[in-house]
């Protein structure tokens, strides 16, 4: 999708949304999972990201790439979900509430069994702040400047976290 095709939109049409979902849906999910390590939560975060994107396309100011914009929204929403100690919805009408209570152990078991390769397994052992930097740099191949914009931290801090993440990954890879 062309960068300038979104820049001047005041409203998004369904076809553009569909194209965005097709092109970036998996990447948004991947990044949400990298932060939350929870599949259900990542499904819901992905949904919320594209709802926001659809309804607030004018927040794309064109100074960043579409991917960077989407990753920034994904990160913000992911942290909002994560920062809740538990998530429960009480409704006046009988709608089943989603529950993210399937355990960290269950997710870890899923990672062990289904991770694409050994390197991804180690990435998921990193602390969140190091993991998100490595994923943005290695998987999404973003520059330090772009990563700083997504994480809203100085470039120096990105460099420092990346250094720490690589060091930790080297140690983890050697252990195994």
């Amino acid at each position, binding site marked *: 999708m062309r960068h300038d095709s979104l*820049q*001047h939109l*005041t*409203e998004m049409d369904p076809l553009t949304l569909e194209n965005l*979902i097709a092109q970036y*849906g*998996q990447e948004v*999910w*991947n990044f949400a*999972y990298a932060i939350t390590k929870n599949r259900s939560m*990542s*499904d*819901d975060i*992905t*949904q*919320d990201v*594209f*709802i*926001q*994107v*659809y*309804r*607030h396309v*004018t*927040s794309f*100011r*064109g100074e960043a790439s579409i991917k960077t914009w989407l990753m920034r*929204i994904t990160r*913000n*929403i992911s*942290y*909002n*979900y994560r*920062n*809740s*100690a*538990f*998530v*429960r919805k*009480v*409704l*006046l*009408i009988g*709608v089943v509430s*989603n529950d993210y209570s399937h355990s960290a152990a269950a997710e870890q078991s899923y990672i062990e069994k*289904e*991770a*694409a*390769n*050994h*390197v*991804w397994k180690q*990435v998921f052992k990193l602390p969140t702040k190091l993991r998100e930097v490595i*994923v943005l740099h*290695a998987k999404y191949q973003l520059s*330090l400047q772009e990563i700083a914009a997504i994480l809203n931290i100085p470039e120096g801090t990105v*460099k420092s976290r990346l*250094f720490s993440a690589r060091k930790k*990954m080297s140690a983890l*890879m050697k252990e195994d």
Partner: protein
Amino acid sequence: MSQPNPEWYDALQTNPFKETTFTDQLAYKVKRNALAPGRNRSVPHRLAFISAAIICVLGIMLIVSERESVTAILKGDFTSISKPNTLSSRIMKTDQVPTERALTDSDWEQLINERETLSHRDMLYKQSVGDNVTLVFSRRINDIQGTPVVNRNTDGHQAITLAVDYFEWNHQRWEWSQGVTYSLQRDRTGALIVLDHNKEIAEERLVKAGSGVADISLFYGMVVDPSITQIRITDNQQVQQQAVIIPYEDGYTYWFAAKPNLGDGYQVEGLDAAGNAVTTDD
């Protein structure tokens, strides 16, 4: 980083899992919910601590100034300006005050921040009232500074300030006339803390603020419970109006409505997608 990338970087080019996790079914659901009327969020992103009383703060600020014709306002001449086609990121010098009526979002954001001394305010929404008045709804999030008034631990807490600024077209420029604000806190867990009868409580459904500028009553706040997809304001003559729902890139959902000031007796309700009341004024 000047060092070359380690060899294992290549292994991260794949998706993290063997199976496809963003399935066609999920993609369909995402698209369906995004296109559905109102906002359909599957689950809340906010912690529910305790049942909360809804606070509605009505403060009327009457500042005498040149103002829009009351007749025009009572006729419901609230015209929303859709955001301009060109999202300009040009930076204006302080002496380059825009002299055209149609400002970009960046221009409005710069105007609301001209008087700001704390952290930057982000514009959420703007609404014109007749030809010569524009209301700009914004928010600011900043770390809490200074000594707490009450002896409690506010480490990691942040203040969220919602603001509505009233601009008038005067002397060939948009001039700030007056403004109102409402503040709440976000604690370390992400819960939104509001004051209810001088007690701090975690708001789990709907943050509501009400104020007035000139002859306009303002209603604004934040949606906490995502089952709320509509907000309805009913005045003392039983005329109803839907608030604008504003999902924002920070992950929060804000809302805003402006009505002619007809005195007291407004009711603000949060409704779900089926129109059932999730919150009401008691």
